[in-house]
């Protein structure tokens, strides 16, 4: 089957040194894909290449449709939270191309925004300023804006960063539900365990694609060690995959022997009482 969007052996760098190289990524219609990798691996750069915000230095970005509509949810850290806009005003920005002129939103767009906000459980907040929301609610507002565009594909940059575990779980549940309804989704995340539980296709990235496949195929110690350049361990527990960096042999007691409660200093090592 022909992919919806493809990066064909793409290389890109902000200077002479490439940030990502030889990226071959195929996104098929209805797929749910997560890009994982350490900080600085190039995850956001790959998303920007997918969105067309960056132009490949080598290779090409290919789209099946010339009018592919993408709903983009940026990292919430990049949002100006002091900007004077309400939840509803942000969500209606998603409909900007349907009625680009004059300040007034169309009645059906307003109604659609209200429906989306209700579906996402934040209908009561539509007149609130965006700063007055919790991290999870803020993520939902930007997801609502993306859905407002009636997109063919959703692209989310770190949707689970800056929110608690329960909220991260809820967001991934919500995305999985949208994917069940046929939405194509591409996201980046640091949260390997939530991705393993909810996302059927994982791309391990560190400058280049290390591996891609189903979570049980790519979440192996060998692939994760190469991706994170760290000592990772994978635990299979109760049908779940749990990924963890192997604890460092040093403990706090090794570093600060005098200051760990319940650990009196060893007299032989010259500690003071």
């Amino acid at each position, binding site marked *: 089957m022909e992919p919806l969007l493809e990066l064909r052996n793409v290389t890109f760098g902000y200077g002479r040194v490439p940030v990502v190289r030889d990226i071959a990524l195929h996104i098929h219609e209805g797929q749910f894909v997560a890009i994982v990798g350490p900080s600085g691996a190039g995850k956001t750069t790959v998303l920007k290449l997918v969105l067309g915000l960056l132009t490949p230095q080598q290779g090409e970005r290919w789209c099946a449709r010339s009018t592919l509509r993408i709903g*983009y949810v*940026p990292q919430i850290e*990049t949002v100006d939270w002091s900007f004077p*806009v309400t939840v509803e*005003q*942000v969500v209606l920005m998603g409909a*900007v191309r349907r009625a680009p*002129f*004059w*300040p007034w939103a169309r009645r059906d767009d307003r109604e659609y925004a209200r429906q989306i906000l209700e579906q996402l459980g934040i209908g009561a907040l539509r007149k609130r300023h965006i700063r007055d929301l919790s991290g999870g609610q803020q993520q939902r507002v930007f997801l609502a804006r993306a859905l407002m565009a009636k997109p063919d594909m959703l692209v989310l940059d770190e949707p689970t960063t800056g929110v608690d575990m329960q909220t991260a779980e809820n967001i991934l549940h919500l995305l999985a539900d949208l994917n069940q309804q046929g939405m194509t989704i591409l996201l980046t995340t640091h949260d390997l365990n939530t991705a393993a539980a909810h996302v059927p296709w994982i791309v391990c990235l560190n400058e280049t694609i290390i591996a891609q496949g189903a979570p049980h195929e790519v979440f192996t110690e060998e692939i994760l060690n190469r991706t994170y350049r760290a000592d990772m361990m994978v635990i299979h527990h109760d049908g779940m995959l749990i990924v963890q960096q192997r604890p460092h042999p040093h403990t706090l007691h090794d570093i600060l022997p005098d200051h760990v409660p319940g650990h009196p200093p060893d007299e032989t090592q010259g500690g003071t009482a």
Partner: protein
Amino acid sequence: MIDILLQPFAFEFFRNGFVAAVLAGALCGMLGVYIILRGMSYIGHGLAHAIFGGAVVSFVLQWNFYVGAGAWGFLAALLINQLARRTKVSADAAIGVVTTASFAIGVALISRYRRFTRSFDAALFGNVLGVTAGDVLVVLGVTLAITFLLLLFYKYLLFTTFDEPVARVYGVPTGWVDTLFALMLAAALIASLQILGVTLIAAALVIPAITARLLTDDFNHLMVLSTVLGALTGAGGMYLSYYVDVASGASIVILQATIFGVVLLYGTRRQREDVLEHTHF
């Protein structure tokens, strides 16, 4: 009281100046909202200086003031935009380089050609005595055109100001939006120059918008409030200018700054009261 308000209208210069100041205040108030939200408060100051350079060049080359200074200001605004977008130069540095260079050209030409019949004091500090009925028509035309464009492209401008890269993903032609904004800003500055002057126009762009920002968190309310504040301080500043006998630009800006101070104090006091109200001893 009515006499105090009506008496200055016996003079044609006041009538022209009053209408022009109200319109220029409203215009600067409207555009000022986008300027403060884009974090470009310094651009009004810089562009006004750049336009001063353009005005001197137009005078030397005997071009029409509005055409010469307008084209110069527009090009300076575009150049700042492109420098900030396409190079490693930050927006404030780009404003600093382009506009001071342009101002320097104006100063160099004035010192080279010492045969100016036109007073550049008026351009620097604003002077209502020089406002003609033709100038009022220009301010009116520019205000109407910019109001129309701000309404027409409201959604594009709002989205681009809020988050430019994301707006691009959603299909907003952000490059064109920025160009349009540069054009509107240059036109507004030129139209307001005679009233407010090069040195004070930046304050008229920033103060009503920032004062309104202290009072509301809603973008639509902010636009209305800033425009109304700009217009009202334009009117009040004209009376102040007439009765206290000071330059119109200075009186308008002093009034705006006073209102800003009052709102800031009120806001700080209200915040303190809120904290006390929610603190149980």
